[in-house]
């Protein structure tokens, strides 16, 4: 493939294990309801494009989260007047976000410690 104009694709992209995608999605809608594309953009922005998320996997993940009661969705109008589906965090979703976040932090800290102690 020849080079094209536009944002360059970063070389290193980290593969994302499944469970963590759910966590990131919950975080992405923590502040306000967002539609699917917004969520995907937010993930890309926050991670400076280091995280590789196949965009398509988002939607099945969103549905799963909705089934588990952590997100709820409704149809609304986007900024450019198009019909879009918005996802927002439920109360149990918020609780899940908190507990998973602290669990992740503890895990990351322990792993880092182990790795540091050579």
């Amino acid at each position: 493939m020849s080079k094209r104009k536009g944002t360059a694709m970063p070389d290193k992209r980290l593969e994302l294990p499944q469970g963590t995608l759910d966590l990131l999605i919950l975080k992405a809608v923590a502040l306000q309801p967002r539609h699917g594309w917004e969520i995907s953009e937010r993930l890309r922005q926050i991670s400076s494009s280091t995280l590789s998320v196949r965009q398509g996997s988002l939607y099945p993940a969103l549905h799963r989260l909705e089934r588990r009661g952590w997100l709820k969705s409704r149809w609304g109008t986007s900024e450019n007047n198009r019909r879009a589906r918005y996802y927002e965090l439920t109360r149990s979703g918020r609780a899940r976000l908190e507990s998973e976040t602290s669990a992740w932090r503890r895990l990351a800290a322990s792993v880092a410690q182990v790795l540091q102690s050579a």
Partner: protein
Amino acid sequence: MLTDVLLRLRSIFKRDTVERELDDELQFHLEQQVNSYVNAGLDADEARRRAHLELGNPEQIREEHRDARGVRALEDLARDLRYAARQLKRAPGFTFLSVMALALGIGATVTAFKVVNAVFLRPLPFERSGELYRLTKISPSGTAQWLTVHELNRWQDENRTVAKMAGFTVMDFNLRRPEPEGLLVVWASQSFLDVFGTRPQLGRGFGPIDFDPRSDKTALISHEMWRRRYAADPAIIGLQVDLEGPTFLSQSSGRYRIIGVLPPHFWLFHSRTDFVIPMRPSAEQLNDSTQRLVETVIARHEAATPEVVRSDIAAITRQIEREASPSQTQPASIEVRSIREWQFGDLRQSFLFMMATTALVALIACANVSLVLISRTIYRQREFAIRLAVGAGRSRVVRQLLTESALLSALGGFGGILVAAGASGMVGVLIPSQIMNRVPGGVESLSIDGRVVTVALVATVLAALVSGLGSLLAFRPSQSFQNLHQTTQGLAAANRVPLQSVLVISQTALAVTLLIAAGLLSRSLIELNSIDLGIREREGLVVWINLNQSRYPKDEDRIRFYRTVFERLNMQPEIRHASGVDMPFYFEWQTVRAGTETNAPTEPSRWPEVLARAVTSTYFERHGIHLVAGRYFTEQDYFRASPVAIVSQTFAERHWPGVNPVGRQLRTVSDSSQPASTTVVGVVSDIRSGPHQPPKPIVYRPFEQLPPPWMYITIEGGRDAEGLFSAIRRAVWSVDPDQPLDGASGGPWTLGEMLSDRTERPRLIARVGIALAGVALLLAAIGVFGLLSYSVARRTSEFGVRIALGASAHNVRSLVVRRTITLTGAGIALGFCVAVFITRFLEGMLFGVTPLDPVTFMAAAFVFLAVSLLASLVPARRAMAVSPLVALRTD
């Protein structure tokens, strides 16, 4: 969680909407992405290309989303079912036959289980019926012995293992007003209701005062009698009825006050109970050790095992005997059996046979379905090859095949339940009424309860598995690449049908085995029935007259009654002959001890027991019992004349071997009489009570000299049973209008019915065996027909070539016939091997035929061959009608 369930339901029922929503979302996503790239400076095409790349394959996304919905399995199942239904609709003939076959097989199994359930599995209508046992006293000679009231009391008072015990006897009573009717009355001891856990629905049960011989007579009435006779009037409590008791129970006739009504469906091991009266033995009855009045003893044990109870009661019995006669060396033994074992234990083998045969029939039906599915699987190899090539997983195709067989089986199972529900009538025909009447509630009580439904479901699932197995075996995915290139015809031709042949041969083998079994059982039945018991079975009606005890207390009264009745009977134009005997020949009771001058030890209690009968003078001739020596009874042998007797041949040979006994003296003594001396005036031929029984020694007395309290009167005449019965009713009621004519035990009967009582079990299994063998034969024939049709169809091109090359129609037909004979022959041979192994288990049920009877085997083979050739007619004709041009062009 609720949201999960709701979303899943939505995914199922609003599938299209959900899919559309996803598409909308993806569409929106793409648009936003494209816009963002365009705003970043990319040109439109490039932006679109990138956006698509980043989103990913939409179909894959949709698949993942479907997985995420959590209804994948259900959707797939629904799709498979729809597809399977379409496939089935495409071949309606085969579908119909398969469903029919399965419905028959499953229906037969479920029906058989319904009966087995009613007899062996359903709880009996008593509270905690598993705790109830019957205690029987067995005399040293091996026969069951009734108890005296005294013995019963001692068993009750002295035992240490039984919680509750009751004794009772079912007796024939008469009710005189308003209409004479025979009744079954239960004479019961004090804890009767307690033992069964029954409480009256109205009024009260028995209390101690009811058992006091000085107080009024009281009775409980059954629910059914209350409804029938008294229209369920609540004022029944306190009503007085006049009951006539049997002669052997003194003071049982009189006025009884009804104090309570039993609950509905009170089942006491026989057809019906009309009244229950308290056991009130007089002092004499209590102390007389020869008055054995208690027939059945039931105990409720709660914790003790039968063995413990048995030894406990046996110890009491031994003690009683030792007190009565210290020199008695041979004690009686005690048998303890559960109620179910006692009532139905003898049926176990027959019902096992029944279930085994229905299972075999069901198996044959499954084989039929399997055949159909296999044929179709082979035809569809090409379709499967294509599907596999475009990426369907192998397990997916397999799942589809199994879904088809599951759908067929489900339809068959549903049909089977319909068959079973409607087959109660069939049950009534196949299973002799004597057996069904033993079940509480009779034929009407056969219901479909939880157990039956479970069995139906299990049978259906097994059918699905077995029939699906066949098509699985025929599915050859490994050959799929070559299959793509073949024509359908070529495919079928390449497959040399070994699998189907194996199935048809197995089917045939099973059907032949069933035919052989049915044949053996039928021949046994014929042998049983044709056995010469020494008594002739004729047209006629048998009526039982139980004399009202209080009306005919004296011998002269009874003689007068019988004499007059017979006179009147002979006057009726419809009646040709009338004769009477006090007890049918095959009942084992009513015996006396007989001693002769040469052959008797001195003490009468040691004389041998023989059957005793009182007969009319016409009895012997009417029943085909012929005279061996001396004479029949005549008018001379009236009441005050010298006592005479006629003996059976066996008796004569035993007591006067080699000598003519006519003119000799014979002394008889019974529990209720003193020794009497009679003169032998004749010897008659023997009769036997059953084909396996040796002839019994019998002493006959003329009824004028020993008038019995009841009599079985046989009348023969030109009219049908109804007409004869009215004739006899007219005659009897002209003598005594209060005399009932139908005992509660049944009657009137035909002589044939009375004799058929003895063959109830052989009749059961013969009928069931024949019915099922017939069904098996039909199913196997259909299997043969199916395979032949298929075989002819696949060989169409071959036949076309042969005909083109000059083969005649005859040649082609003989090809088909040869194939038929090969198939059937192999099946029959295999069937013989299986039958040889299996009929061994039937040995106990056979009579007059060996398990390896060659005639039966040959007959079964012949029948099956004939049926197969018949089944081959249509395929053969089709083969002959093949047009060579069409055949060669067909795909």
